[in-house]
């Protein structure tokens, strides 16, 4: 049996229906544990005080904002190569979640930046690239919304996603070239010494896992809705025919 059989809409509805409740509950548990742990049972940072607690929302949402785009890219490629409708619908379903995650990252970042840097917004490379990523998401969602024929929309958004990925990476480096940064570097890489301390790290990883599960649950739910909507349209068309 090949892995692609899971992409058959009927089978997809079958297994995703069973998976969604589990993933949703797990996501809720992980996020709740991580946030409560982070908010009430981890110490304040000696320089940042209590504002460090924003990290438990800021970092997971920022990670998801980037990874959701990558997931959309992969789903679009699968649609392009293998023409699995579920794949295109999953990319469509993921985009608005990506918009929200990017927005959360930007807003929590602004709230964090106010006390730390003394400003809500700075044209720092990381902040600027996130704003540009946000614009890319908006364009992608708008293109999906504008085209009526679902297959045409899937094809065109796929092309946009591929080209957009290239330009998103280009913008990232162009922005680095354009202005020097205020934002700190990576704080979670596996091979560096400058990671965040363990007391912050464990609850942070918990919320990150929670956000990933939340994203999986939301994507599955939204994809199921899309499949149902399409099924409904087909049924209505059949009824009209005869």
């Amino acid at each position, binding site marked *: 049996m090949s892995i692609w059989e899971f992409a058959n809409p009927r089978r997809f509805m079958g297994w995703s229906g069973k998976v969604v409740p589990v993933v949703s509950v797990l996501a809720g548990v992980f996020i709740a544990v991580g946030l409560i742990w982070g908010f009430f049972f981890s110490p304040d940072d000696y320089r940042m005080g209590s504002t460090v607690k924003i990290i438990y929302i800021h970092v997971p949402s920022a990670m998801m904002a980037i990874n959701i785009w990558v997931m959309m890219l992969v789903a679009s490629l699968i649609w392009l190569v293998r023409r699995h409708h579920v794949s295109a619908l999953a990319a469509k379903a993921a985009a608005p979640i990506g918009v929200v995650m990017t927005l959360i990252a930007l807003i929590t970042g602004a709230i964090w930046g106010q006390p730390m840097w003394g400003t809500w917004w700075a044209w720092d490379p990381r902040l600027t690239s996130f704003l*540009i990523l946000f*614009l*890319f998401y*908006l*364009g992608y969602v*708008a*293109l999906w919304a*504008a*085209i009526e024929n679902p297959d*045409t929309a899937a*094809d*065109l958004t796929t*092309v*946009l996603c*591929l*080209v*957009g990925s*290239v*330009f998103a990476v*280009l*913008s990232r*480096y*162009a*922005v680095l*070239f*354009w202005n020097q940064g205020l934002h700190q570097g990576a704080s979670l890489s596996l091979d560096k010494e400058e990671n965040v301390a363990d007391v912050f790290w464990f609850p942070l990883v918990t919320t990150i896992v929670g956000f990933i599960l939340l994203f999986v649950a939301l994507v599955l739910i939204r994809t199921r809705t899309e499949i149902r909507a399409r099924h409904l349209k087909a049924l209505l068309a059949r009824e009209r025919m005869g």
Partner: protein
Amino acid sequence: MIRLLVRDLRLAMRAGGGFGLGLAFFLIVTVLVPFGVGPQPELLARIAPGILWLGALLACLLSLDRIFQLDFEDGSLDLLATAPIPMEGVVAVKALAHWLTTGLPLTLAAPVLGVLLSLPGPGYGWLVLSLALGTPALSMIGAFGAALTVGLKRGGLLLSLLVLPLYVPTLIFGTEAARRGAEGLSAGTPLMLMAGITLGAIALLPFAAAAAIRVNLR
């Protein structure tokens, strides 16, 4: 392909609008800036490269939907799709025609408007050079955006939303080159990076745009 280019150029000249409109828009944007920020020469000189680049970019954006829309409506795009030349070639030629009617005049007009914004002396050459190297990328990226939205009834606004984020790298390197040139610094690095973007766009985007047009003609 040459005949297609000549046809497009002729259409742009005779159909009115496209050719002069972009230039007039560029002029108006640059004239409005001093009203917005005040007439101090030092301030204007500092922001002049950015304003001129931004004005050129917006003027370019204005005429993008004309690249494919008219041909799509009267059916000549279908004819071109069945013609012996590949769709990628059609896209490249149309982007070239757009550049010749928009990017090139803008580049030539930019130094004149630079005078209005009291652009510093050494900046003129770099400004023209950066625009000459950067506007082809704007036309090519724009042709890709136009190809995506050609089948839509009200594609204009969506086209801007899709294309503007794609313009970010070109704009950054272009203004950086022009600004460094105006301040007498060495502008080679951003200029080369921007030329790289332009070449990459010309090499790859015709394929993406042609794929989008084929989908839209389906």
